[in-house]
């Protein structure tokens, strides 16, 4: 199994590397909205002194960390996989004795991330000098605790996206379903607005949803803003959602493959 992942990595890394210019464009596109949120919220806080207790530095540090968390926990499986179900090119992968989405698809996403993270580094440094954030609240233990949290966040996000991608077995409209899902993530993950600034109802709901595990939870871990109790609660939620997303993905996949029509060649 190790050898499979090693070779999958070599192939996918080589493939992604061929598209590096493409990837850079994608990364820039990806970064536009968080950087806009960063700029907008910081100027508002600068004018008003603070927004609901969030100072300008709180916003800058929040979004600077979000840029990293987002790169680590997000995935592009809908773009790399849904079309294969629709145009029949999944056939070549389906007849191989490994799971297409849990092996190749997964490694493909990780290779993609590796490259975009490398691309993010210089951009992050430029933003650092532009906004001069004060990271004094960040501790080593917080950073260390955030790493498994982000990995869990990635796997939960990947499985949920993979399940939605697998809806392509039923409908060709899977992209619009994914757009809707993406809007929900935007709202409940703490990307659009840091969760504490949301109405109480949304905060209460967000707590039990998996989406805050992608951004808000690891960001707050890194920034050292969570109590021990909140940290434990977050990890329990992550564990529960990991199990739920595995079951959900498996169910959708199993039923979807039965409907696969292997169109085309």
């Amino acid at each position, binding site marked *: 199994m190790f*050898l*499979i992942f*090693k*070779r*999958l990595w*070599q*192939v996918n890394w*080589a*493939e992604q590397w*061929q*598209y590096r210019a493409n990837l850079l464009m994608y990364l820039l596109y990806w970064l536009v909205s968080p950087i806009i949120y960063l700029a907008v919220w910081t100027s508002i806080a600068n004018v008003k002194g603070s927004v609901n207790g969030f100072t300008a530095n709180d916003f800058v540090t929040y979004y600077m960390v979000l840029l990293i968390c987002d790169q680590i926990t997000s995935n592009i499986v809908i773009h790399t996989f849904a079309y294969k179900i629709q145009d029949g*090119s999944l*056939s*070549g992968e*389906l*007849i*191989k*004795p*490994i799971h297409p989405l849990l092996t190749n698809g997964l490694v493909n996403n990780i290779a993609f991330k590796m490259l975009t993270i490398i691309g993010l580094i210089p951009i992050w440094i430029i933003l650092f000098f532009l906004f001069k954030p004060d990271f004094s609240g960040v501790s080593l233990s917080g950073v260390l605790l955030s790493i498994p949290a982000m990995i869990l966040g990635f796997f939960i996000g990947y499985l949920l996206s993979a399940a939605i991608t697998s809806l392509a077995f039923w409908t060709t409209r899977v992209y619009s379903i994914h757009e809707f899902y993406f809007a929900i993530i935007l709202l409940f993950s703490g990307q659009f607005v840091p969760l504490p600034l949301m109405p109480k109802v949304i905060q209460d709901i967000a707590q039990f949803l998996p989406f805050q595990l992608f951004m808000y939870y690891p960001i707050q871990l890194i920034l050292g803003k969570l109590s021990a109790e909140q940290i434990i609660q977050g990890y329990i939620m992550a564990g529960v959602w990991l199990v739920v997303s595995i079951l959900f993905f498996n169910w959708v996949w199993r039923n979807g*493959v*039965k*409907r*696969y*029509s*292997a169109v*085309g*060649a």
Partner: protein
Amino acid sequence: MSPTIHVQQLSKTYKVPEREGGFSAAVRGFFKRKYKEVKAVQQVDFKIEQGEIVGFLGPNGAGKTTTLKMLSGLLHPTDGKADVLGFTPWDLKPEYLRAITLVMGQRNRLSWDIPAADSFLLNQAIYRIPDDEYKATYKELDELLELEPLMKKPVRNLSLGERMKCEIAAGLLHRPKVLFLDEPTIGLDITGQARIREFLREYNKRTGATILLTSHYMADVTALCERIIIIHHGQLKYDGGINLLSKKIAPFKLIGVMLAESNSHDLSKYGELVQNEEDWDKQYIQVKAEDVTRITSRLLADLPIHDITIADPPIEDVIEQAFNS
């Protein structure tokens, strides 16, 4: 021993959305979609024993590819059963997938953006092929298909035929016991086709693998298969020896006549005239097998004959007739 492939009452019906052109039809279709049922494969039965090479024939849309897709596990049938090597194909068990191969079309096992060599190594890992076995198989494939010069180029830069060679090789690295080949020689030149045929025959002899193949090139079928299965409109039309086919379906012979002086005599009163463009100096008539002797002696008696031949009609024509029957 139980057969390697055992298909019972296998059926596949596709539901295809259908609507007429035009705006109002599009609006209606949005609320209520109409579906048409397409019976791609209907209650097909056959058994294939270990080591057989069977040609699977039928016109476009007959259900050949659908059947191959079901047998390799890609498609779930609507009804019926299939047992291949003791597995139900569509369970997609890894042990099953490691024992079979499906070569279909041009892009399957190779990633377009990287050289084939990398995809080969990936397949080695995926199919858990030990190093020494991998090297031996690769060497064999290389000898037959001359792969080495193609290995280092990105697959997208290979020609159609070169890519097909790599596809076939990639599909055989794990030494499958059952081969489903959909048009394995498509896009290849004559020597390339002959090589693949030679290779498949050799592979079958050496490993005892079972091969089910479809092809538009009748030469593939006549060279490799002793037995053929014909389906048309999803139904089994013929299953048996290739040499018995003409007897069963088209009990005709072709008499070719070259006259001593031009083609001035009308041969249509002896039998049905048949066009043959390749052989312009001869005229061909098709007659029933039992009438051959009688008609030949009449021809010899009546006409100034320079040369006369009696042959079976070409297999393509026979199969064509089988489709239409």
